[in-house]
């Protein structure tokens, strides 16, 4: 019985962390699919969103106002980034765009540091407790943090809305067309600047949501906190098949599942109820899969990434799309 609860708990964890990765990865994938730009400053948008939310809450603004400010601020910043930094170098070699994204990231990090000093706030900054998002849900003997459940539900709702947008609306269809063949999309009468701005706006909005959920879970903010999420989102997008939105979503959940699996399996020997498996097996599990292996989780994640790149360089969805092309 315990084991069933344990499994359910880990499943919720996997889906909630997967939702965060997917929310971040689709922003990267949308921009990459159209511009061939790996926007590493995407992680810094997540950071800025968290800081906007923190400053708003510390200024005693209500939660709803905080969320609106955070979304609006992050989306505007994403649009500004595209207009000021990326549009002028469109058509330049990919390396130039990549370096620009690092520069944009640096500017956002240092800007945040500056604002933190001006507002005389400490660095790192403790994220204010949001009572609506803190606490746990208890089902029988399992407890799940509320923010995890929220991540899962919100993630799925937003990703479904995004899927409807790209398949059902003309603007979404134009975005897919621009991703496949930008010159041909221009010949269709698609205003590519508008489509690219839309991709940045949607990606930034989703990054803001992920940033808030991420901040609530982490509890503490630094201007450099965007690096790990953007790296994870990048891995998720590569695993799924870089440049496709559905690939980014699948990759996000695959990475979430993988990480939780790599956290849950070590130490499993300590949790299994006595008598479920032979004592020899249990002793073997304790010896070879001790809970201390958990700290190597990211190393295992990168091993999986390398294997994916070796055997399925186009990602989980990549090769299937090639077949569809005939």
């Amino acid at each position, binding site marked *: 019985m315990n084991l069933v609860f344990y499994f359910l708990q880990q499943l919720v964890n996997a889906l909630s962390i997967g939702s965060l990765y997917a929310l971040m990865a689709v922003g990267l994938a949308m921009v990459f699919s159209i511009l061939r730009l790996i926007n590493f400053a995407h992680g810094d948008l997540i950071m800025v969103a968290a800081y906007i939310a923190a400053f708003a809450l510390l200024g005693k603004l209500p939660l709803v106002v905080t969320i609106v400010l955070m979304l609006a601020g992050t989306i505007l910043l994403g649009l500004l980034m595209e207009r000021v930094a990326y549009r002028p170098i469109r058509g330049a070699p990919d390396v130039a765009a990549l370096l620009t994204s690092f520069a944009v990231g640096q500017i956002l990090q240092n800007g945040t540091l500056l604002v933190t000093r001006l507002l005389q706030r400490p660095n790192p900054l403790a994220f204010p407790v949001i009572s609506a998002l803190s606490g746990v849900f208890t089902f029988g003997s399992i407890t799940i943090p509320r923010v995890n459940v929220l991540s899962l539900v919100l993630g799925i709702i937003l990703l479904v809305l995004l899927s409807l947008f790209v398949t059902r609306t003309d603007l979404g269809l134009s975005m897919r067309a621009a991703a496949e063949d930008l*010159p041909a999309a221009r010949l269709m009468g698609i*205003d590519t600047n508008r489509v690219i701005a839309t991709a940045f706006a949607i990606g930034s909005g989703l990054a803001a949501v992920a940033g808030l959920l991420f901040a609530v879970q982490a509890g503490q903010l630094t201007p450099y906190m965007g690096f790990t999420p953007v790296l994870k989102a990048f891995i998720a997008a590569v695993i799924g098949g870089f440049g496709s939105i559905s690939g980014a979503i699948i990759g996000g959940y695959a990475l979430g599942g993988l990480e939780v699996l790599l956290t849950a399996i070590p130490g499993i020997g300590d949790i299994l109820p006595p008598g479920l498996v032979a004592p020899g097996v249990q002793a073997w599990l304790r010896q070879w899969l001790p809970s201390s292996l958990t700290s190597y989780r990211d190393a295992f994640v990168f091993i999986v990434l390398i294997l994916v790149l070796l055997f399925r360089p186009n990602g989980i969805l990549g090769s299937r799309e090639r077949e569809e092309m005939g």
Partner: protein
Amino acid sequence: MLELHEVEVAYGNIRALKGISLSVAEGELVTLIGANGAGKSTTLKTISGLLRPKAGTLLYQDQALDRLPPHQIVALGISHCPEGRHLFGRLTVTENLRLGAVQRRDREKVPDDIEHVYKLFPVLKDRRAQLAGTLSGGEQQMLAIGRAMMSRPRLLLLDEPSLGLAPILVGLIFETIQQLKREGTTILLVEQNARLALEIADRAYVMETGRVTLQGPATELKHNPQVEHTYLGT
């Protein structure tokens, strides 16, 4: 309707168009013929705004085209069906057609126009839910022309519609081109197959290395000894 005057275009240091002038009148079918690299596709790309001229003027119904982005040129009523078709292979046939009409204001008429394309090319209706990348070469060319017609152009730029097609399909495509002309569309046709192009065109321009070297009524050019020798192989 369309008037190019001394248009020059360069790719970096390479001058692809060295000052070409041509005109297309309302209702005409005009063809550009010439060898590979003569600048035929470059001319079409400059008209549709994908390339910017270095010098010269492009006028469409007395409006200058050379500073407009491609989507505004489409909105003026010029549609460019590019060489190599450039379909959206991972989108369905219907989605490709819908994209041809994205910039139109009269959204409610789009489904009727999709039906019109299906009437023109019934095989596309059978394949409407299929991904465009899975179509045969002939079907892809039909879809490319159908997609270009979805913006309801008054001027259609067609680049090498017969390229890589079996003779029977070439015949079908050329019949369709003539039908579009009868329906009132003005057409500027770039073709390697000079014989066929001169057969259906009203007037023709012969291009060589970025210049117009000959021009005139198609029936006249067909019997021009130089054209016969170089492009018709007689």
